[in-house]
Every structure is written in C-alpha cells, then in structure tokens.
C-alpha cells in the first residue's frame, strides 16, 4: 500500500509545550501551592524485613504545627496495578518487607515541621531474617516467608511450551547454552514523585494532582484504597518530569496525600526526596536467565529454551506482567519454531521492581542477541548474516500466536550495517577496539486491560466551534514523550488543518475522555485510531454544510490545507473556518467521538479452548523494530569502556514527528547505555540501599555522549492509523547486547552480567592473559 501524502503527519514540528518549559513556566506538581495546604512526609523503615510491634506517634502530634499522623491502619486496603496480585498498602500494616517502606505519614504546616515530626514517631520493630537473593529466597522459604500467601516466596511461576524443543535440539547442528544476569536499575527520572490531594469535605470530592503516567490506573487504585467511588475522584496531571515506567503505578505519595487530606479536610502535598525515589523503586527486574538456542546446519533457529528467575523485590507491582513479557520476548524478531519458557518471579526484601522502559524485553534481548553473536561465530558467518537469515517478515505469525502485520526489520539491519561499515570492521579492528551489532523489537500497545474489561482502551473527543477552534480531549499522559504534540498533528492531518491550530486537553480524568495511560508504547497507535474515528464524524457533518456552500455533493469534497474543495472541480472551494462558522450558527458546537479497541487476533478462541499461553501477554496491534551498532574503545590499562559511535536504524512505522522520534531514540540509547556500563542499585547485607542518590548511582552525563547516527527507515504499516508503530521503548532493546558484542569484538571476552564495569573488564583481561600464558606454556 502506498503512503498517503501527509502534510501534518511526518512534520518535524517543535513540541507544543516547549516554550512554557524553556521559560520555566510549565507547572509540575511540586510547583503548586493551594490555600490552607499542608505538607506531608513519610516515616520510613530502617529495616528490610521486620514485624512492626508498635507505633507511637503521640509525641509527634504534640509538636506545634503538626496536624495529623496516619499509619497503615488508616488505609489498609490492598492495591496493585495488576488486580489479581494486588498486595501493596499505602503504609505498612503489621510488617515491613523492604528498607525504606513507609510506616507512618505526617501532615504539618510546613515541610520542616513535618520532617521534625517524623523523628518523634516511635516505631518498635522485631527484625526478621532478610532475603536479598532470589535463589536464597526460594531455598529458605520454609523458614522465612515474605508474604503469607506465597509459601515458596514466589509471586507466580509460568511455563510455556510451543512445538517440541527437545526433539528440535536433538536435531540441531549448533547448540549453545549460557547464563546471563542483569542488574538492579532505577529509572532516575528527574522529577521525584509528587502528589497533591485536595479533599472537599462538604461534597466528598477528591481532587488529585499527581506526577503519574497512568491517570486511569491511579484513579482506580485511589478508589480502592480510599473506598470512594471513582466519580468522586478526579485525577489531574500537571507537567510530568519524566517517568520511564517509574510512575506507571500509583505511589504511596498519592495515597498518603489523599488519606491525610481527607482526614484533615485541607490540601496536602507529598513530595519525595531523591532517596525516597530509590527506596520506592519499581525499576527493572534483575533477571537470572539460562538460555539455550539451537540452529540447524544452515544457521536457522530451530529451538529456544529459556529459564528466567526474576528478582521481584518485596511486592507484586507489575511483576507477573514483566515475567510473562520476558517469556514472550523470545519469539521475535526471529522465526523460532519451537520454544519453551520457564519463568518465576520471586519475592526478596528489596525495594520492589516494576515497569521500566522496554519492560520485559531488555533482559531476554541481552541474552538472545549476545548468544546469536556467539553462534554466528560457531557457524562461521557474520552476526549480520545470521540475523538476516532468521529475521521475521511482514505477516509472520509466531508459534506463540504473535502476529506481525508489518516489519522492516531487515531494512533496519541493512541500513545500520551499511552506514556503520560493520562488515568491514567486525573482527578486523586492533585489540581494544570493537564493533557490535544487535537488533530488537517492541510492542505498540497491549491487547488487554490489566483488569477484566472489554471497554475501549482510548477514547478521543474532538470539539469544533467558532470559539475554541479545534480541541482534542483525551486523558492521555504527556510525561515528556510528546504525545500531546503528536495527537495535535494527527488530528490536524485528519481534519485538513494545521497542527498549530489544534488545542489538546489531556492528562485529566474529568476533562479528558478515557485513556489507559502512557505505557507499552501504546499512545500514538491507540490515539491515532480514535482520532481518525472522531475526525471522520466531524468531517462528514462539515462536508454536508460545505457542499451547499460550494455547490457540489458532500461525497465529492476533500479537505486539505484548511479548505474544502471538490475533487473534480478544485476551483469549487471554501475556507474551513467559514464552514465551521456556518455549522456553528446553524447547529452549535460540533463534536466527534472516537474509540480504540485493540484488534482481537483471529485464531485465538478463549471459549473453545484455543488458549494463548502466557495470559495473552505480548500481543500487540503492531511492533516496532530496530538495529544498533556500537563501536567501543576499551582502555586496556584502566578497563574503561569508551563508546566512540552508535549507528541506529529503526522501523517506527510512519514517523508522526521525526524530530521527536529521533529524540526518543537518542534518549533510549543513553538510557540503556547507563544500564550496560554504569548503573546498579547496591544494598548492604541488611538490605539497606547504599547508593540511593544521583551522586552514587551513576547515570550517563553529557560527557558520556558518543557520536550517534540514527535513521528512521522508510516504513508504513498499512494496518495502523497513519501507518504508525512505536519508538519509545523499542530502541532501548538492542543497546546492551550491542555494547556487549562490541566489547567482545574488542577484547575477546563475552560479559554475561551487568553492568560491564572497569573492574570486571580488568579482571577478565587478567584471566584471559593468565589463560593465554598457560596455553602457550603447555
């Protein structure tokens, strides 16, 4: 299918919130102050695992300026992003399960008083043994149980079997089996969580402002914890200072602000310190993976066996979803005819893991892309050739029933290889210099809501009149990724006007129509479908009026560049505003409302037992693909890895805003580079985090910025609105294995645990040297 000729989609336009942000005038939650507002602070546990024997806050209440104190008993209902596994509470009830878990919260007239009050709250603990390693946690489950309802200290375990991997492995020419370990990393978004709650006692109405990326799921959780109907709660998003999954669940800040506000009948704001951001974590799951891949004599993948133990930390969070995603992610972007996955998500006494950019994909991608690199060497071909051979094509249906309507993955591989000169450099650079390739993919939305419901995932309402012009309403969350700008562009495209003339009202559960939230790289696709649907209704009504004005039939009219014109006699035309004026005068404000429900895949019949293994996780309307090639210099004396250049080529479908896509890709590259080379939260033996600051937790700075060359490959998914896919999470997938493969090319060492620190590099070089001298000596 040919790409339509777009004018607004495909334009690199500046973000609509750009000027406010550069002026410092964008309002984030912590910038807000309301009349009578109190400040909330949370008292946190110094133990990683302990029974709370007693909390005495009488002295805190006596401190002048303290208004109220709450503990777990004030809001004990369990909440969780996945309702089937909801096991978190606003503040600990009876027991703490990780260092830094909240045990009480104070509201006071100012932050200083609230802070001082925390010291006056006396908590008596009975420490319990601390389990920090998932293997140990499973082994000692009889003796130490983190949750009463999880006797093996396992949240959930799953097994998926497709085809006959054992038989396939027996027939394979090349089989490789390895273990990989990924590290414990945090999103490190710049804006700490903040929640401002304003409960109006007379009306029983709660207004929340929160730094969340999931206003709808926060709305639901507030309703559960506060035992209030959703229609009495309104969630509004001010500007959001980054999220990356870390604001993809409610946070205790939300509940404490709301519970305190309801208790004292005045607004309460809770803003986290950076140490609290680390303590409440919800970052990427450390994974302990065993992967086995079998290739036939020609290098085609025949089977994969994947075993993954996810270190989940103290509570459930997104855990079960992440777990099944890691199982699902082995089925693409290569054709895998036989596969087995055995996965389990284990409780430990650590700040809980959750959703983080590229959820569930990054860890298995690291293992798989590194192994294919090694297996190419076994086969005697280049990793590029091996990956091209096995890459999926448009229309592919995996054995796990993942349907890929469209892909340009091979074009991504080709483009990155050509632009980087990979084939000329790989295996031929001097010792210490290396080049590595890896590919990846990600979903563009999910197939199901997290709770059982068949409602549309996104609704868009477009309002047109002479006063407001065009306003797009949708409760989507612009967390910095730029969805407001992209929605304006898509609406303008469909209505035949300019994006500058579209207003977007988002991030509000009352003024915005329904949306599930910003996660799973879903918004461009989902809102695109709903926008097209809504705009079509508006265009139809305006065409009926315009037809009379220009003197032709409505179905002969086209709308472009702010004009209605007859497609047969283009001179018969009229300005868009004039038509709106006539329509508004005659009828009043015009609205169109559109919905998006993810397509249900044919062949999956839940009623007749053709069930999809893995709780249907991994299905998506379409998928984005990409390839990255990294060039590194390894300093043989210090072990430091310097990245010289990154070449990326991505298939994000039709780019709605290419400048914004480039920003997502570049941001992803630096984000994932942090996990590969620098980042790791560290705990002492008692489970206390020892680097809970941005001083000790090292994220990449501008000094680490390498040369980055990105390409948006020509792509258009004919099944998608405007041909779009995703670009926010796919580009984090290839980074870690591409760096690891480049380091192998440089020094001949394959690293299987992260991050690849200078210490590990030096140790590996020393071992390699010892081995070499042993070999040459014998």
């Amino acid at each position, binding site marked *: 299918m040919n790409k339509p000729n777009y004018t607004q989609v495909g334009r690199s336009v500046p973000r609509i919130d*750009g000027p406010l942000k*550069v002026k410092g005038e964008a309002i984030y939650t912590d910038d807000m102050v309301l009349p009578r507002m109190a400040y909330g602070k949370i008292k946190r546990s110094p133990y990683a695992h302990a029974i709370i024997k007693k909390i005495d806050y009488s002295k805190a209440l006596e401190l002048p300026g303290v208004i109220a104190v709450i503990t777990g008993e004030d809001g004990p209902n369990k909440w969780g992003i996945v309702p089937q596994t909801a096991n978190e509470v606003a503040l600990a009830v009876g027991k703490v399960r990780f260092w830094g878990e909240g045990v009480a919260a104070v509201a006071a007239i100012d932050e200083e008083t609230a802070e001082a009050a925390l010291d006056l709250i006396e908590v008596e603990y009975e420490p319990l043994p601390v389990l920090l390693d998932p293997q140990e946690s499973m082994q000692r489950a009889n003796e130490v149980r983190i949750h009463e309802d999880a006797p093996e200290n396992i949240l959930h375990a799953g097994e998926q079997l497709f085809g006959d991997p054992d038989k396939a492995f027996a027939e394979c020419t090349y089989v490789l089996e390895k273990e990989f370990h990924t590290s414990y990393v945090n999103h490190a978004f*710049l804006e700490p969580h903040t929640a401002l709650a304003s409960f109006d006692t007379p009306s029983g109405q709660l207004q929340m402002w929160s730094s969340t990326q999931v206003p709808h799921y926060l709305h639901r959780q507030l309703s559960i914890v506060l035992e209030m109907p959703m229609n009495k709660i309104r969630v509004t998003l001010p500007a959001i*200072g980054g999220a990356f999954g870390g604001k993809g669940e409610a946070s205790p800040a939300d509940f404490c602000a709301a519970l305190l506000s309801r208790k004292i009948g005045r607004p309460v704001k809770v803003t986290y310190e950076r140490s609290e951001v680390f303590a409440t974590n919800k970052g990427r799951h450390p994974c302990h993976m065993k992967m086995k891949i079998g290739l036939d004599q020609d290098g085609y993948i025949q089977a994969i066996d994947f075993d993954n133990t996810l270190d989940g930390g103290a509570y459930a969070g997104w855990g079960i979803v992440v777990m099944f995603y890691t199982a699902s992610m082995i089925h693409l972007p290569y054709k895998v005819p036989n596969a087995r996955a055995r996965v389990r998500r284990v409780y430990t006494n650590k700040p809980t893991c959750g959703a983080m950019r590229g959820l569930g994909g990054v860890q298995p991608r690291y293992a798989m892309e590194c192994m294919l690199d090694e297996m190419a060497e076994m086969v005697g071909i280049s990793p590029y050739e091996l990956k091209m051979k096995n890459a999926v094509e448009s229309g592919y249906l995996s054995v796990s029933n993942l349907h890929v309507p469209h892909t340009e993955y091979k074009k991504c591989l080709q483009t990155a290889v050509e632009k980087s000169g990979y084939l000329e450099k790989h295996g031929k650079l001097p010792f210490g210099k290396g080049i590595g390739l890896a590919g990846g993919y990600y979903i563009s939305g999910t197939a199901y809501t997290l709770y059982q419901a068949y409602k549309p995932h996104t609704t868009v309402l477009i309002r047109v009149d002479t006063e407001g012009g065009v306003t797009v309403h949708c409760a989507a969350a612009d967390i910095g990724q730029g969805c407001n700008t992209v929605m304006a562009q898509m609406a303008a495209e469909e209505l035949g006007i300019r994006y500058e003339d579209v207003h977007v009202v988002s991030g509000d559960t009352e003024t915005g129509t329904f949306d599930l939230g910003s996660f799973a790289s879903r918004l461009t696709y989902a809102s695109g479908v709903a926008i097209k649907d809504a705009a079509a209704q508006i265009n139809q009504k305006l065409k009926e009026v315009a037809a009379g004005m220009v003197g032709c039939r409505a179905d002969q009219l086209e709308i472009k560049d702010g004009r209605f014109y007859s497609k047969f006699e283009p001179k018969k035309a009229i300005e868009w505003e004039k038509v709106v004026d006539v329509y508004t005068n005659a009828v009043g404000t015009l609205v169109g409302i559109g919905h998006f429900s993810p397509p249900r895949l044919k062949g999956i019949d839940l009623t007749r037992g053709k069930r999809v293994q893995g709780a249907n996780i991994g299905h998506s309307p379409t998928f984005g693909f990409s390839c990255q090639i990294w060039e590194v210099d390894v300093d043989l004396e210090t072990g430091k890895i310097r990245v010289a250049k990154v070449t990326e080529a991505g298939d994000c479908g039709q780019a709605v805003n290419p*400048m914004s896509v480039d*920003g997502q890709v*570049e*941001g992803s590259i630096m984000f994932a580079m942090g996990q590969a080379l620098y980042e790791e939260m560290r705990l002492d033996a008692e489970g206390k985090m020892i680097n809970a600051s941005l001083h000790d937790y090292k994220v990449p700075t*501008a000094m680490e910025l390498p040369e980055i060359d990105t390409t948006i490959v020509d792509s258009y998914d004919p099944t998608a609105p405007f041909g779009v896919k995703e670009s926010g999470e796919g580009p984090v997938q290839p980074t870690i294995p591409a760096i690891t493969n480049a380091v192998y090319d440089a020094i001949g060492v394959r690293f299987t645990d992260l991050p690849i620190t200078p210490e590990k590099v030096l140790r590996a070089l020393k071992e390699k040297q010892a081995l070499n001298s042993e070999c040459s000596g014998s």
Partner: protein
Amino acid sequence: MKQLITLEINNRVYEIPVDPKDLLVDVVRKKVALTGTKKGCGQGDCGACTVLIDGEPVLSCITLAIACQGKKITTIEGLVAEDGKLHPIQQSFVDHGAVQCGFCTPGMILSSKSLLDKNSRPSEEEIKRGIAGNICRCTGYKRIVAAISAAGETISSEGVK
C-alpha cells in the same frame, strides 16, 4: 531565628525573611514563587536547581540563601526578554527538540548561558563540559548539545546577551 535579607533576583530586589539554614532553592521557589528552578535531588547531584550567581552556574539546593546577599541571581524566569521573546538559547532548545519532560531544562539552559556568555562559539567538547553537571534522562543530550551550539552562533552573529 528569621532575619530579613535582600536578594537581587532577575534584576529585582526582594526583601525576604529567612532562616540562616534556608537554601536558595527553597527561598526562590517558595518565598519568591519562581518555581522554574527545579529540585531533582536536593543534594547537588543533578543540576536541575542550577541558577546563575554573578553569571556563574551555582547549585541552589546546596547554597545558603543568606550567602547570596549583594550578588546578582539569575533564574530561568530572568531570561525571557521584556517583550516576551525567548532568549536565543531558549528558542534554540525549542527548535532543536532539546526539551522532552522539561525538568532539567531550566538548569540546563542556565548552565548553557554561563558557558555562552564567556564563549559563544564553544567546541562540542566545551559544551559537554559546560553541561556535565546537569543530568538529562530523556533526550540523550545530543539535541541539547546541538541547541547550545546553534544558540551560540545566533548570539555571536546577533550580539545578544
């Protein structure tokens, strides 16, 4: 014990009652209500709270407000021209897609301004050093470096300060 101090912020003089331990970031945000200055870590690690003091970038979350008397403080709100036009660095950040979530942006722009005020044609390496203390988790820095470089060209050709 509160004491009354005088701070000159964005060419305006404020008389503010402060505690000797009050930090500049809190005074600027809460008492002067200039919330463009952000607090990302409160420990001097992330750079979001950067303001200029006598033209030099300073981390306002580890600076005592009383220590800033008699000095010229510039916050992000002080960069827009009197006719409402964006400063060339601000405009360049918008045009180059150097802004995503925007939380690091005020500090990043002020570090850039200090750099460009001294040298409007910095090398890429000099730009990176100039913003090395400002963490951005969204953009990957590439567009920020490009925006600063382009702003420098505008400034040197137009002579804007």
